């Protein structure tokens, strides 16, 4: 067995540990003078870490990757009251270090065949060595060994996971002061945070000097599953671990209180400086629940032969940190105008200290250089260095015998350290990064920018030396792209364009009043217009499981829901979130082109219907099925729809449009959970994996304050199979709605919808599985038949391990293609707000709730709960 096995043991089912992030530690944005709307996309990816003799591909690992999207709005509600609102979502996947240990322990594991590293040897000077067990010299009774001072990480892979955060703040401005108050929440499957904050500023000396301050309070709840972390000792947390859906789950609470005060000073016509002092007090569960440390025990009384070889048993234990962390930070920012080039030099120095022994210094330099034509180029460089926390070591060795309870787990009361962590973030290291931002500002208030940063984390870059070993070095890249809209400038530019064409001073950029949940129903009013639209769709399902529309009991679920095999796992709930981004452009009056990428997050919670591993003979060996009970999710980019919408009829009160679209398979269709080689169930895949034809026909009518419409839409899969071996069913939807204008800016709608989803065709193709145990008849080395000789007639059943192509394991109803699709009726209500004036004139916000009213699902499926859709449409 290799590191992979130990990774599996120690593994984190999910590695969120937002643990170390404090969403609340943001003062409400000091409201900007300009009103703006911005969206930003970023992609973070790491290079591979040094695993010595092993590679990521041989271990089935991928480096960590994060996709983040955020949207941010700053609006003036009155002259003095401003609103700031933001939403962000991160999806990440990949492998991360769980623990670090001597490479000698991994070598010893490889030789012994243990499922995880459990010991290593040292020479008489306590340096780790690798023993050559084949080198036994009968004359001396000794073995050969060689020094191996290397350290190595045990990596564990996480399924893609998603975090969502929403926050808002209101601020009030006086002539010389400003006060703002805000709050928000951040949610992910194992970590929830809520936060409130208060901030303000005072202007002194005709605004030459500004005092700014902020306070924030964050309270967080941790509930992390330890199901995959069985190799690590949980001793210190026994009272915090409870069973949730059959999984041991660690619970914790954390509180963060932060404050800062600063001074911003104008120095001269081309320079200003800000000095800020901040303090953060964190209490409660400050650990990363997925990180473990290796404790080794070098018994001083052990027998040591003439070669000096010493035996050190080791044990993985969940890390333990103090429950209080006090952090001070001093930040100095300086901006200097450089007249010869009209550039701006920015410098930021930061000093950080905490009571854990960490001192960090960083210096960040950047230079914003306008290039003419609205272009700005910004090269940037940063150096960061930190000392290690007092309780950090790559691994720990104590001069004492292995302190086990008799016949039981590690006795932590005999371990002379109370706190220990091997989290590389608490080690001593330095980091050097550099990047470039390119920005283009258009006359109409739109600004686009693209930035790249390369970041190198190196133990050898620590200021003053003595940083961690090179085994922990890694590099990462961050790509960001953003679109920022200056709302006032943009509205004025669009009003000007409308006036130039002599079509009146209103801005009806969007012609449709269809409810939020009707997709691709809109066109732009005129040729040359641009628009952007973000839609959020939340549809979920929960138990009990139903057959068609009849609830079924657990016995029927086990017996029938998985086809010819018994179900081992049953779904408790299913979630489906989607963020749809529509970029719309009208080259002419009668045509609008739409490109719509989407970010999706799908999750399922499974419970055990029968003990998975008991009675392997009846439900089959499960070398690679889904991980078992608990919560599983996938997040990332889904399929991208591209559409051309044609205006067929446009008369007062009556319009008809047709759209021809293609769904491009940008979402992944062959996702596997963790390091498994089998596929995650169909419903957890992020894309169809096929090119699909997506036409629709939309009619809308209006008379007086009443309006109504209908849409017929479909998805026709254009390929026989995707790369994973199956094809999703075709879909047809038909819907009709009516709406009533309540005021000139608000309309209420009611809608009915019918959807038919076809069955999944085909199934996951077989996957290559390593080390599948097989029973074979083989030669025995003892006299089986009792004839007095050991010969070829003496055979016995032996277990051999082979690589084999195996079909997808049907563990639960969601693994069976027959349990997808059906006919669904929904009805619901919605509202659409169209901004009548101001910076957002003509822009729309709509929300709709659809409630299931009739379901005829194929096979066994969960009960649908309803669909919430929210949509913001902004003209550019």
């Amino acid at each position, binding site marked *: 067995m290799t590191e992979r096995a130990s990774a599996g043991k120690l593994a984190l089912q999910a*590695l969120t540990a937002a643990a170390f*992030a404090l969403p*609340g*530690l943001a003062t409400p944005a000091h409201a900007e003078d300009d009103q703006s709307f911005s969206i930003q996309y970023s992609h973070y990816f790491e290079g591979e870490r040094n695993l010595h003799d092993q590679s990521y591909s041989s271990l089935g690992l991928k480096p960590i990757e994060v996709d983040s999207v955020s949207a941010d709005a700053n609006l003036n509600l009155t002259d003095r009251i401003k609103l700031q609102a933001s939403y962000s979502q991160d999806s990440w996947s990949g492998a991360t270090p769980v623990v670090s240990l001597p490479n000698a322990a991994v070598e010893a594991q490889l030789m012994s065949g243990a499922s995880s590293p459990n010991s290593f040897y040292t020479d008489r000077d306590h340096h780790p060595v690798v023993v050559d067990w084949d080198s036994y010299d009968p004359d001396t009774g000794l073995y050969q060994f060689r020094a191996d001072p290397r350290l190595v990480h045990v990596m564990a892979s996480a399924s893609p996971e998603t975090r969502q955060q929403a926050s808002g703040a209101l601020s009030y401005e006086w002539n010389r002061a400003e006060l703002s108050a805000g709050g928000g929440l951040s949610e992910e499957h194992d970590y929830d945070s809520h936060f409130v904050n208060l901030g303000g500023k005072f202007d002194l000396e005709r605004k*030459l000097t500004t005092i700014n301050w902020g306070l924030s309070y964050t309270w967080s709840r941790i509930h992390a599953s330890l199901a995959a972390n069985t190799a690590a000792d949980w001793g210190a947390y026994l009272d915090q671990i409870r069973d949730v859906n059959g999984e041991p789950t660690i619970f914790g609470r954390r509180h963060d209180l932060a404050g800062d005060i600063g001074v911003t000073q104008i120095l001269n016509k081309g320079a200003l400086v800000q000095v800020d002092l901040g303090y953060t007090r964190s209490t409660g569960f400050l650990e990363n629940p997925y990180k473990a440390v290796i404790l080794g025990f070098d018994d001083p009384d052990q027998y040591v032969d003439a070669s000096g070889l010493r035996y050190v048993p080791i044990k993985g234990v969940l890390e333990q940190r103090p429950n209080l962390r*006090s952090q001070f930070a001093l930040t100095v920012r300086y*901006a200097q105008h450089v007249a010869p080039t009209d550039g701006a030099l920015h410098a930021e120095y930061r000093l950080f200290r905490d009571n854990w022994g960490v001192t960090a210094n960083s210096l960040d330099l950047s230079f914003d250089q306008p290039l003419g034509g609205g272009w700005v180029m910004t090269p940037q460089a940063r150096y960061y260095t930190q000392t290690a926390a007092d309780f950090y070591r790559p691994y720990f060795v104590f001069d004492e015998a292995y302190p086990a309870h008799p016949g039981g787990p590690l006795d932590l009361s005999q371990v002379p350290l109370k706190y220990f962590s091997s989290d590389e*973030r608490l080690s001593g290291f330095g980091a050097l990064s550099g990047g470039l931002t390119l920005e283009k500002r258009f006359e109409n208030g739109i600004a686009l920018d693209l930035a790249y940063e390369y970041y190198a984390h190196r133990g050898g870059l620590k200021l003053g030396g003595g940083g961690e070993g090179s085994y922990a070095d890694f590099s990462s890249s961050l790509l960001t792209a953003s679109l920022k809209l200056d709302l006032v400038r943009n509205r004025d530019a669009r009003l000007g364009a409308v006036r130039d064409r002599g079509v009146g001073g209103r801005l009806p950029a969007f012609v449709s009043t269809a409810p939020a949940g009707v997709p691709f129903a809109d066109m732009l009013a005129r040729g040359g217009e641009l628009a952007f639209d973000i839609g959020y769709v939340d549809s979920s399902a929960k138990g009990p499981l139903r057959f068609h529309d009849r609830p079924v009991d657990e016995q029927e679920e086990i017996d029938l829901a998985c086809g010819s095999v018994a179900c081992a796992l049953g779904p408790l709930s299913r979630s489906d979130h989607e963020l749809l981004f529509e970029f719309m452009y009208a080259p002419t009056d009668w045509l609008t082109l739409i490109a719509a990428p989407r970010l999706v997050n799908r999750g399922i919670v499974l419970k055990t219907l029968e003990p998975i591993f008991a009675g392997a003979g009846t439900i089959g060996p499960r070398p690679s099925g889904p991980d078992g009970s608990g919560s599983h999710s996938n997040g990332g980019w889904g399929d991208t729809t591209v559409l051309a919408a044609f205006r067929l009829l446009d008369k007062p009160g009556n319009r008809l449009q047709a759209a021809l679209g293609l769904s491009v398979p940008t979402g992944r269709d062959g996702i596997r959970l963790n390091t498994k080689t089998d596929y995650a169930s169909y419903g957890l895949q992020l894309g169809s994996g096929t090119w699909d034809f997506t036409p629709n026909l939309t009619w809308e009518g209006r008379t007086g304050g009443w309006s109504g419409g209908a849409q017929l839409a479909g998805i026709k899969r254009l390929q026989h199979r995707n790369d994973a071996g199956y094809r999703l069913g075709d879909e047809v939807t038909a819907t009709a709605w009516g709406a009533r204008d309540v005021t000139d800016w608000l309309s209420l709608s009611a809608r009915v919808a019918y959807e038919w989803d076809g069955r999944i065709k085909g199934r996951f193709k077989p996957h290559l599985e390593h080390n599948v145990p097989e029973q074979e008849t083989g030669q025995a080395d003892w006299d089986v038949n009792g004839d007095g000789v050991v010969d070829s007639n003496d055979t016995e059943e032996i277990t051999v391990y082979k690589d084999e192509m195996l079909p997808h394991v049907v563990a639960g109803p969601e693994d069976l293609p027959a349990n997808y699709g059906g006919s669904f009726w929904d009805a619901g209500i919605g509202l659409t707000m169209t901004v009548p004036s101001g910076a957002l004139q003509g822009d729309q916000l709509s929300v709709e709730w659809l409630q299931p009213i009739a379901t005829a699902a194929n096979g066994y499926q969960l009960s649908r709960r309803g669909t919430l859709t929210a949509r913001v449409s902004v003209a550019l």
Partner: protein
Amino acid sequence: MMLLRTVLRGSIALSLPVALATLAGCASVEPWERGTLAEPHMALDPHPARSAVLSHVRSSREAAATSVTKSGGGCGCD
């Protein structure tokens, strides 16, 4: 308290040149002379959205977590 003293000492040391510079030069900057300072690229943080992402990534990779003066967020990338 030791810690606090160290940080305060550091901040005083760093603030001193700033304070001197302040006394020396700022009194003469009238509001109509602040055109350059009002340029977007002369803001103390000209790219706030990008800074938010950077501090978010750094807070999940470095021990010196974001301060209250920066926007933060969950880790997202253990």
